[in-house]
């Protein structure tokens, strides 16, 4: 899932600037399960901002609301009648949610309260790790299910580099060397011979290097004359 973390309160306050009446909008999907922007986090941030602005001597009106998913029009459209009451929307959605709100409500400032970090998973309580870089051309079958693009610091396809020691990446002892993991995994699968072939240069055009991406599924789209 998409994993995000909250910006520091001071940064959020600075972005709010002169806005006096603010609606915090949370999201019930990815950011709820990474505890960054769900119902509870919205309530905590709302309370913190009300207290903080009051202590600053300029109490702001801060209201709280959560939608099921900020990245889909049908879930955010019902917000429209609410927005007249507010100067700005503080979104606790991921970067996609913030942009959806901004696009749907172009006359309202939408401020991101989160830093969207990566696609990953909780490996244990309170610990999320990056797993996928959306390169657009999955190579996981060649590496025993461990992604070298997301998990090798140098995105090597013929790793490991010389800095791998005791299963740790040279950049940080807490970062496992993805290629050590791949080597171990391919060995346990009996497929280590496959790692002897030189993997040729990657076609990066399917990743962000090729430009902003889109997927179109014609089978899911009604003909133009029948669309709303």
């Amino acid at each position, binding site marked *: 899932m998409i994993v995000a973390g909250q910006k520091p309160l001071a940064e959020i306050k600075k972005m709010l600037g002169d806005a006096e009446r603010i609606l915090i909008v949370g999201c019930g999907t990815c950011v709820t399960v990474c505890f960054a922007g769900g119902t509870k986090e919205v309530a905590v941030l709302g309370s913190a901002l009300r207290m903080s602005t009051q202590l600053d001597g300029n109490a702001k009106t801060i209201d709280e609301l959560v939608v099921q998913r900020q990245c889909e029009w049908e879930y955010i459209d019902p917000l429209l009648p609410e927005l007249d009451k507010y100067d700005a929307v503080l979104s606790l959605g991921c970067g996609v949610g913030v942009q959806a709100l901004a696009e749907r409500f172009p006359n309202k400032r939408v401020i991101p309260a989160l830093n969207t970090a990566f696609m990953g998973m909780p490996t244990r309580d309170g610990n999320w790790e990056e797993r996928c870089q959306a390169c657009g051309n999955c190579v996981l079958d060649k590496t025993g299910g461990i992604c070298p693009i997301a998990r090798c*610091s*140098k*995105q*090597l*396809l*013929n*790793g*490991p*580099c*010389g*800095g*791998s*020691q*005791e*299963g*740790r*990446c*040279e*950049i*940080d002892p807490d970062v496992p*060397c993805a290629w*050590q993991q791949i*080597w*171990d995994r391919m060995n346990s699968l009996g497929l280590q011979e496959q*790692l*002897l*072939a*030189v*993997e*040729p*240069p*990657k076609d*990066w055009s399917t990743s962000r290097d090729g430009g902003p991406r889109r997927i179109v599924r014609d089978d899911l789209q009604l003909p133009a004359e029948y669309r709303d």
Partner: protein
Amino acid sequence: MKIDGQNGCSNLERLIEAHEFVVTGELGPPKGWQRSDVERKVELLRGLVDAVNITDNQTAIVRMSSIAAGRVLVELGLEPIVQMTCRDRNRLSMQSELLGAAALGIRNVLCLSGDHQKFGNHPTAKNVFDLDSMQLIQMVTRMRSAGTFQCGEEIEGGGPPFWVGAAANPFGDPFEFRPQRLAKKVSAGANFIQTQLIYDLPRFKEFMKRVVDLGLHEKVAILAGVGPLKSSGMAKYMRDKVPGMIVDEYYISEMEKAVASIPKEDKKARNAAWKERGIQLCIEQIREIRQIPGIAGVHIMAVEWEAAIRPVVEGAGLLPRPVLS
């Protein structure tokens, strides 16, 4: 001997083909643009080594470009081995710079992954890693052998005659995979290998045994990486802080013994004693390494201590360096 843009293949290549035991050195370009800084270092190495590696933003610290410094060496008559990492360039700029390097008389390229920029002085930079070192080796050797760019188009006037090198680290993990990774680099087309600094001879010998068993020493020239230690602090730093390096306790204790009888306040005497012992240890190492089957030469890395190369090379009986007609 001068190499210009038109003539000549790598002198190092010719020496290896003539079965000479080769000696290469290393030169770190300056953190500035003064050509004289490069010239000064060249004079410290002239006549002592067959070719000189020029590092490429080593440890992700910005320095003068290795190709530019390499050109200075060409003009001064000392053969450069230009290092190229995958961290700062994509495949377009790599090929473009290689064509330029060949035009400037450079004939040896060492293909490396590159230290992550987190270590360096620009940790907020984007890294590239369009290719990895394996793919870079393959690309450069194909430029020479097939005369084509990575995309398959023909290179005008034929491919550049590079002699391609790669690094090997017998001390990184997973240890079992390292000889096979070397085999991969050989199948990617590497012509010569320089290893990481050796401060654990038993492990290195074990590595070379596996390499020889795989027959790799016959396909690629393997140069053992050695370097004189400057102090016990340096030895401990490399043991603890440099990922992928192993330093056997023997070296730490030898360096400590060297200053055991000198008072701590006498820094001058301590440094002199350390340096003397460091050079001696390096000489002993070279002698022992020459006995290992499969070794075609040594690569001496005297970090910011080019003045140490002469005593090491002399002490190890490696002078004079051969000159081919």
